[in-house]
Structures are given as C-alpha cells and as structure tokens.
C-alpha cells in the first residue's frame, strides 16, 4: 500500500478534527472557490488586523485532502503577518506542484509537510491547493477593499491556477 504516503496520519487527523472550521464574523474579505473537475467547494473568510492575519474561517464541501489542507492553512497563517502568510503559501504551492521533487521545509510549513505525498498525485494537487487559493484570493480582496473597491464575489477563474 502506497496510500499511507498520501494519507499521512497528520492529514487524517486534520480531516477528522479540522481546525478553525466554520464561517465567522467579522471578516474583511471572503472568497468562494470551486474545483471544476469534481465540484468541490470552499468558502473562506479572512480578517486582518494591522497587517496580521487575525482570523481565517471557512466552510468546505470536499475530500479529506482539501479539508485537511484548509485546516493546516489556518494553523499556519493565523497570527502571521500577511507577508509571511503569502510566503508560506508560496512554499506550500511549490511543494504541492513539485511532483514530489521538492523537499519541503518543516520550519516554514509545519504540518503542511505532510502534503508532500499528495504532490505525487497530480489529480489531487488541486484538492490540496483549493483552500490556499481561496486564502490568496481573499487577501487580494482585502487589499482591493482597502484601496476603496468593495469586496465582490470571487472570480472563480483563478481557482484552478
């Protein structure tokens, strides 16, 4: 069985007891993302506070990988500066899209390193990234609203990036 490579205990734990799940108020921006292949969905909210990610809350309809990934995301970015959180996101994305060739840095990615196994299954990479893309989109939206624009519905075209 190679299954355990993908479904590491850490992932299954996050899947069974997701951290930070549920939609909370207040929030600065919300993003809705969808995986067009399987119909999986996430709605994710971000609240910033003086350049820091103060809260991430979300509701998912999806597989174990996408749920666990959202949970790990919450752990990794809440309390960090926006800048840091985007750096973590970049590292996570690099690993997830790295086809198993990228050795993840546990200092940066924490429990996220457990997703290294997923990177070997290209069809599941989108699952692992769904929440992260929602987070990225929501952060961009907070910036836009700061710049005066109102928070709109997500452009789901970016969901599959």
């Amino acid at each position: 069985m190679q299954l355990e490579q993908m479904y590491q205990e850490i992932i299954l734990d996050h899947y069974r007891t997701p951290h930070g799940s549920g939609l909370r108020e207040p929030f600065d921006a919300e993003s809705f993302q969808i995986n067009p292949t399987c119909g999986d969905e996430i709605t994710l909210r971000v609240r910033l506070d003086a350049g820091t990610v103060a809260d991430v809350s979300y509701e998912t309809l999806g597989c174990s990988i996408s749920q666990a990934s959202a949970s790990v995301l919450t752990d990794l970015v809440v309390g960090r500066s926006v800048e840091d959180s985007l750096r973590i996101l970049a590292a996570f994305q690099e690993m997830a899209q790295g086809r198993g060739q990228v050795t993840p840095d546990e200092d940066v990615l924490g429990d996220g390193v457990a997703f290294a196994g997923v990177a070997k299954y290209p069809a599941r990479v989108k699952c692992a990234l769904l929440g992260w893309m929602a987070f990225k989109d929501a952060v961009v939206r907070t910036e836009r609203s700061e710049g005066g624009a109102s928070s709109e519905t997500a452009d789901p075209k970016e969901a599959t990036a």
Partner: protein
Amino acid sequence: MTLDVAKLRGDFPILARTVRGGRPLVYLDSGATSQRPRQVLDAERSFLEQHNAAVHRGAHQLAEEATDAYESARARIAAFVGADPGEVVFTKNATEGINLVAYAMGNAAGFPGAERFEIGPGDEIVVTGLEHHANLVPWQELCRRTGATLRWYGVTDEGRVNLGSLELTPNTKILAVSHQSNVLGTILPVAELTRRAHEVGALVLLDACQSVPHMPVNLGSLGVDFAVFSGHKMLGPSGVGVLYGRAELLAAMPPFLTGGSMIEMVRMEGSTYAPPPQRFEAGVPMTSQAVGLAAAVDYLGHIGMDVVAAHERELTALAIDGLSAVPGVRIVGPTDLVDRGGAVSFVVDGVHAHDVGQVLDDRGVAIRVGHHCAWPLHRRFGVAATVRASFHVYNTPDEVTALVEGVQAAREFFGV
C-alpha cells in the same frame, strides 16, 4: 456466440500492464474512454504505412487509395448504426457534432432552404436534467446567441426522465436527449420522446455516446433526426466522432466549419457549398482515425453488439448487487436492470468520492470520480461528486469483485 473474455483481452495490449507498483490494471473507466484492440491499432498503422494521402484532393494512386479507405470507413460505420453513408459526417468527437447542429441552426437565417432550422426569440430548445455538458452547454449558448429559451425535463428520484414534467409545444424547435445516461446508466425512452417531438414538429438529436458503444443501435429505425457518438468510447481512436443526420435534413442544413473540401465554388465575393456529407467536413479530415474507427466497428460487429450488451448487463448486475451489499454505499440511478446500461455511480457515506477513488487506484482499480460532466444531475441528487464504474466488453466478473472489495477497503481505511 459465447464470449471468451480471457482470449479477447489478449487483443488489448494495455490490459496486460500493471499500475501502482505491480498491481494488475483493473480498467473500469470505459465510460470516459475505452481501450483499443490491436486490430484497431494495426488498421490505422497499415493505412499510414501504405496508403496515407490527402483524401478527395489528389489524382495520384495514394490519394485514390486513401479516399477509398476513408469512404469505405464511412460506409462500414454507417451500416453499423443503420444509416446510409451520406448520413454520416465525421467530426473530431461527439461534442463537435452537437455544436455543429447548434451552430448550423444559428447560421440558418438567410440560408436558402434552411427555414426549418431557424431559431430565435420565442422558440424553445428542450433537453433533460441528466445530460452530459456536451448536450447542454452548446444549447445554452445557442439560446444566448439567438434569444431562444432552454427548457428541460426533470429527473425522478430513481434517475429516470420525468415525462410528466414538461410539455413540448409548437415552439419547440429541437429536443436534444441522451440515449443512455453516462452517470446513471438509465436508458431513455427515445421512441416516446421522438414521438412527442415529431408531433409538435420539433427535431430530435440523440446523444448516443453511451449507447452505440454498448448495445445494438439502429438510428434509422429509431427515427431520430440527428445523433452523435465518439470513436474513443467504442474501442476506436480518439479524434474522431460521428454526426448522423437524416439525408434530407443534412441536405438542407447550412454549413458550420468552412474552408477547404466543403465548397462548391469560391470567389472572393462569396462561396457556395458542396452537398453533404462533404459540406460538413472542412479541411483535411481525421483520415487514419476514420479507418481505425471502421476497424473498431468491424471488431464489435464480429463479436455482436447483442453479445456485448449481454456481457455488460451481467457485469452491471454483479456491480449493483456487490455494491448494494456494502454498508453505507448508495447507488445513484436505477438499481434494477430495466432500461439500464452499464454505468454504476455511487457515493459512500462518510468517504468523499475522491478518497474512495484514491483507495481504488492504489489497488489498481481505475474508476472515475467527480461529476462526470453532468454537474446539474449531481446537484439534482444533492451530491458534489460520485464514484463511477463503467464497463466494456473486455471487463470480467473478477474485476467487479475487485471494485467491491476496494470500496470496502476505502471504508475501512477511513474508519467508517
């Protein structure tokens, strides 16, 4: 004829391979695309090594031979579905075939003799709630472009078309329906639907993607006006599909793709077009693929489509029985075999379809997860994704057992 599946599997090189560290491949994804027997691969290769040339365009010997091979392919494929050769248009896939009819209707305004294809505000296009995106989105787009209205038959809880959910009207221009659902396996009441459509003067387009590969289909006697199917789902090559159209309709229908080989006369100021089927085959066609598809229908014809259907029926019964016996498994679609072909889609309580698929894949069992390009149907059943097993003539009862065991294993792995 009894089917010697073990022997027949020897014709399919890919079935001998292993996956995921040495597990034998259990290929249960033929509803997405089927595998090709050596006979099809050889036919295409020998065409390319001996006779390849541009068809209908050259005066040399190779061009003659290539044209003969291409037109002979058309004739054999036509015979396979009870059509005349002139009623068979080669497309790249079934999707193009449906788009062809939709765009031709959009092009009808002002095309001499094409009045019956014209469509505009007040007109209706009717589909069902279980269509593949290929038989839904082109009609949505045609409505958007022309101002026509899209309506649809609902789907019952057991996965049948709800014939009472809609009345066709004299405004209905075309009824576009699946012959067999790619998700539920349901076979639709085509005769009754066609009767209703013709009663109000509407055309009927049949999406035969999941029927022609799996059962005997005679388009002529079904009485539909158009039908489409794809080579790759019936042991043939990718890159080739068929649009069937009744001769009289094709003769009146405006072209869709335009360019070389479909013209009659071209001037800078304007052009006129060749008779069908050429009118609908612009550019150098998928020649070797048509030859390969003809080899596929020869192969299927040699087995007998009734034998293919009976074999798949047996596998479907086994799958329904086996899966139903697994706690927490819910089959989406009919659980009896009445008017039902061999796609079996299901959900497993507490385990997402993707996760079930992963466990199966790990055991060498290749199925499909997701909405199978029938997203509205999945919404209708309140699920985002299902697991789908689908069969072809090369599958065995043991492979169905491997599927059922894999689903059990998935439940165990995720502790439900």
